[in-house]
């Protein structure tokens, strides 16, 4: 009886895990199909003249371009530059944004004071601030990273701070009654409790950092994917623009999967 019971349990459990795996595969399959569909449609539309071939290029051209750039090595250079900038911008943006959120969580007065200023800063078109960044940070790496930060920090701060505020006050009460000081309350309650929100901000930030870096490279750049895009516009080579966009999409997805992986590791370690 006990044996058959545990056998049944195990079979149930296996079934459950199988169903989970199946679902995951189904998701991947649908994603793949969508991707293939997208490229097929694009190619067909370009070939059949539904869309302007000059402006939209076509997947075959785009992939030929990417392949050529990979072979001649120029891709790696531009990619390396941009990925480096994005990584720095992403890490710094997330870190500083979270730190700012911590600061205003720490001091509700500061939070009340800064609130409208943050919104105002957030509503400044960063592209228009370009000259200011150039003046303050020169025409290079720093200016690009600062542009990225200007795009990611406030959003990070607002989202993370909001999740800090959403933590059940009773959990804080428990920790305080067990002798936690404000630092401990933060690290033992607020932070782990808002962990999901922070991770989802990370996911948003991956995207935002790319936008920031590309915009930054539009402002000042000698190399990088943003430079390639601007250059593509200047020499009216939209295949170059599209292939840069595709590469951005690809690398951003990779970075995103990395974040997802880190999330998994962190969660399982908890």
């Amino acid at each position, binding site marked *: 009886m*006990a044996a058959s*019971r*545990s056998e049944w*349990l*195990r079979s*149930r*459990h*296996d079934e*459950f*895990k199988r169903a989970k795996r199946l679902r995951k595969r189904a998701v991947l399959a649908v994603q793949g199909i969508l991707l293939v569909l997208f490229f097929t449609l694009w190619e067909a539309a370009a070939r059949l003249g539904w869309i302007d071939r000059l402006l939209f290029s076509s997947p075959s051209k785009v992939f030929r371009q990417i392949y050529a750039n990979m072979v001649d090595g120029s891709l790696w250079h531009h990619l390396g530059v941009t990925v480096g900038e994005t990584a720095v911008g992403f890490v710094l943006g997330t870190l500083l944004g979270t730190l700012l959120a911590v600061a205003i969580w720490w001091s509700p007065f500061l939070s009340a004071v800064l609130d409208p200023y943050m919104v105002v800063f957030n509503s400044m078109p960063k592209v228009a601030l370009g000259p200011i960044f150039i003046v303050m940070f020169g025409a290079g790496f720093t200016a690009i990273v600062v542009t990225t930060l200007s795009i990611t920090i406030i959003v990070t701060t607002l989202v993370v701070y909001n999740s800090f505020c959403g933590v059940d006050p009773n959990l804080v009460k428990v920790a305080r009654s067990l002798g936690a000081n404000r630092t401990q309350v933060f690290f033992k309650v607020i932070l782990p409790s808002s962990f999901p929100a922070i991770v989802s901000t990370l996911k948003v930030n991956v995207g935002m950092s790319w936008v920031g870096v590309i915009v930054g490279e539009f402002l000042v750049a000698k190399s990088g994917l943003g430079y390639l895009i601007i250059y593509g516009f200047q020499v009216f080579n939209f295949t170059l623009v599209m292939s840069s966009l595709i590469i951005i999409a690809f690398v951003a997805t990779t970075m995103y999967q990395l974040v997802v992986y880190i999330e998994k590791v962190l969660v399982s370690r908890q």
Partner: protein
Amino acid sequence: MPPVVELRSVTHAYLGDREASLAVEDLNLEIEQGEFVSLVGPSGCGKTTLLSIIAGLLQPSRGEVLVNGRAVSGPSPEVGYMLQQDYLFPWRSILDNATLGLELTGRLDEAGRRKTADLLADMGLKGTERSYPSQLSGGMRQRVALVRTLATDPGLLLLDEPFSALDYQIKLQLEDLVSETLRQREKTAVLVTHDLSEAIAVSTRVILLERNPGRIRRVFDIPPQIADTPPLYARDQPGFAELFHTLWKEMELAGTSADRAGKTEG
């Protein structure tokens, strides 16, 4: 007429990423119209799990569940389920929390609102209608949750420890109120409690579960002289003390005979 609740060899295992654990095993049960059944048993023996299954919030891993002769596929407004914790909506006032069920089933009118307010007053919550949950004490919140369940007037009531946060007086008063109301309207009820005297005083039948996994250990039919007496007086009826004692002994055995067979790691 079919039984109001019918469980046919119901088994439930909780499935997690790391393990599966058996909470209820091979349980058979029939509850007739008008019955008031109490579920007792050691903490963690599967009482809440069982109520969730009857309420349609949980699909059992195996077995059939029928309410009023129909297989249960999800929650239905005929069944009122009061959860073990209050879970009031913090953004709603007390009255709005209590009338939630009426609102969801589209039956909220002035009369319904007034009736619910009366019910709140019956439970000693007069004057709190416009307060918010965070302004209430634990016992007050529990009573609001009870009113929320009663307000929709469901045919079958599933109550998970509805009186646990209450002081003795209010508890007795409410036991009386609830059991009288149900009796009059011929409702059926399943009550989870850890207070054995409460179980005997309010029910027509007490089901004792044992744990790991949850199974019926014994069923006690409450003699009519106790079952038909209002709870407040039932405790003084002859035979009450004996029954209490038997139940007590059995419960002690149920608690200690626990093994942890119902788990599989993998």
